[in-house]
């Protein structure tokens, strides 16, 4: 890729003084990035430290109020559930995508991509229609003689809806890893005496784990910051951190407190990413690439 590549034309060496060119190409995007992401995030950090006055009082408030800690904990629990549901549903699905012929695969891929591309608001709307007290699921239950169940504004409803919206983010990385697994290794394992189930556990599963990690990290991080689905499907007992941030800022005009929550969410996200990066990199190396 770079100028050190022996095959690539040594453009940088031939024309000294033009090394700044690649940086110039990235400059417009970077300027926009700084203006529309960097500056706003900086503003939020500053406000969390300065409103109403300079100090850490907003953070002290956040970690001092049990309500906030409950919501923080709930955000993690819901995200963990969503991730778990996604792994369980995506694993066999992604595996099937690698095992079938091109025609069936196209159908399976479309089943993933179409929801992926359909507007997230519309998909959440569908879940409202499905889960509400007068919704599809309850109508069906009553139709066969059961009493209705409370789904909307419950944690279960939020998990079901969020997992469905996030499932493609789990399936796609899993599929791309599984596609690269040499199925002939399973044959080798069998010739060495492994039952199919044993061969799966000792060979296929470990080789597919990088995909599971990658997908799980993405799903978990996106879950942490999810806003629309919990806002529409959840109730007061399933409030997640994002909703709390929105309430502080838009309804209570508490920029400092809302900012502090936002910073906590932001820092958590990046800490998770930083923790995941070395794990994924070492997995990568084991899988045979340097």
């Amino acid at each position: 890729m770079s100028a050190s590549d022996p095959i690539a034309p040594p453009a940088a060496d031939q024309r000294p003084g033009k090394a700044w060119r690649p940086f110039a190409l990235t400059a417009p995007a970077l300027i926009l990035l700084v203006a529309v992401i960097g500056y706003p995030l900086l503003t939020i950090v500053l406000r969390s430290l300065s409103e109403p006055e300079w100090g850490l009082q907003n953070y002290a408030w956040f970690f001092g109020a049990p309500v906030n800690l409950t919501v923080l904990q709930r955000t993690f629990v819901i995200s963990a559930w969503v991730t778990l549901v996604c792994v369980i549903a995506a694993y066999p699905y992604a595996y099937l995508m690698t095992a079938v012929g091109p025609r069936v695969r196209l159908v399976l891929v479309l089943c993933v991509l179409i929801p992926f591309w359909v507007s997230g608001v519309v998909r959440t709307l569908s879940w409202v229609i499905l889960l509400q007290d007068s919704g599809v699921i309850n109508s069906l239950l009553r139709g066969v003689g059961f009493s209705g169940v409370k789904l909307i504004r419950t944690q279960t409803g939020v998990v079901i809806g969020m997992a469905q919206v996030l499932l493609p983010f789990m399936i796609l990385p899993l599929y791309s890893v599984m596609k690269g697994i040499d199925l002939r290794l399973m044959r080798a394992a069998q010739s060495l005496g492994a039952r199919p189930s044993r061969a799966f556990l000792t060979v296929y599963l470990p080789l597919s784990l990088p995909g599971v990690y990658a997908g799980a990290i993405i799903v978990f991080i996106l879950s942490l910051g999810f806003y629309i689905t919990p806002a529409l499907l959840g109730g007061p007992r399933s409030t997640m951190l994002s909703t709390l941030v929105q309430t502080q800022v838009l309804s209570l005009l508490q920029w400092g407190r809302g900012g502090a929550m936002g910073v906590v969410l932001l820092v958590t996200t990046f800490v998770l990413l930083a923790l995941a990066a070395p794990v994924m990199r070492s997995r990568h190396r084991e899988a045979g690439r340097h």
Partner: protein
Amino acid sequence: MNPVQASRGAAIDLEAISKAYGGFKALDGVSLRIEPGEFMTLLGPSGSGKTTTLNVIAGFTDVTSGKLLVGEKSVVGVPAHKRNIGVVFQHYALFPHMSVGRNVAYPLTLRGVDKATREARVARALDMVKMGDFAHRYPSELSGGQQQRVALARAIVFDPPLLLMDEPLGALDKKLREWLQLEIKRIHRELGTTFVYVTHDQEEALMLSDRIAVFNRGRIEQVGTGRQLYDEPATLFVGRFIGDSTVLRGEARSDGNSTALSIAGETVTAPRKLSGEASPVMLLRPEKLSLRRPGQSASGGNRLSGTIGEAIYLGSESKYEVKLADGSAAIVRSPLTGESFGLGDKVELCFDGSDATLLADDASADTTLT
């Protein structure tokens, strides 16, 4: 053929094995007996059924019909993981997430061998393939040749009575291949296990094997030692597949105990007769042919006139391609001590009729080779 250490290997009997994929017959009535401790090579062009045969023995492929016995016991329907057969694959098939040591220990772990015994046997197997220092490396850190040696260690560590090898050296360069051939031969001698080796490389087959089974289009054409296949090919396909050869075709006439071919006005004879209806051809090995300038006096024997089409210097000898009057080509090898010829020289191709092998003509022998 290798009776000395035959004790630890298993015999294999394939009886009329057929395998059909839809309408395509991958194997068409293959029968073969492999003796305990023997080194048997399945040789043939790609698509000839040799790898399918190996997969049938390993248990990766079900048979459509026929009997298969390993160590005098039928294994039809027995799944691969219960057959206790070592397999070495062309693509190495080492587990990328396990170190070399864990790869080799894998079959022992599956068999519940305790840790101490396991370590000792892994070390012994790795020493046998001269990879003892690499136990902690990962497959991605090894060269192709090293990976294949580890794969070999993994396939022999659980002492299977039978080892199958599917073109194990196919992905390696020539030098490494030749060295590993010697290693494989040594390991076969040391273990006494039955080896079944698949290759499309006839030189490799000749170098390694006790016996060779030549496959063509889902059938076995001939089974025999390398010398038998070279000197007495049973079919034109075998004659052409093993070693260099010249095939003479012409209008055939048989009388009494000899056959004469008339080729573009010249006639050659062989003191033999082909049984059956098929039209006969003569197959000649390059070292049985000699070249002379036209008109030079010579003793009896067959002569055909031709022109030198190609002259190749090979160090210890020269190789000539001679264009014959009917447009076909003959390949002649002659020592450098003899007379040398240049491009376009008119020559006479001479051979003794008793050196010619008479075979039934089979036009497909040419097409399947290319």
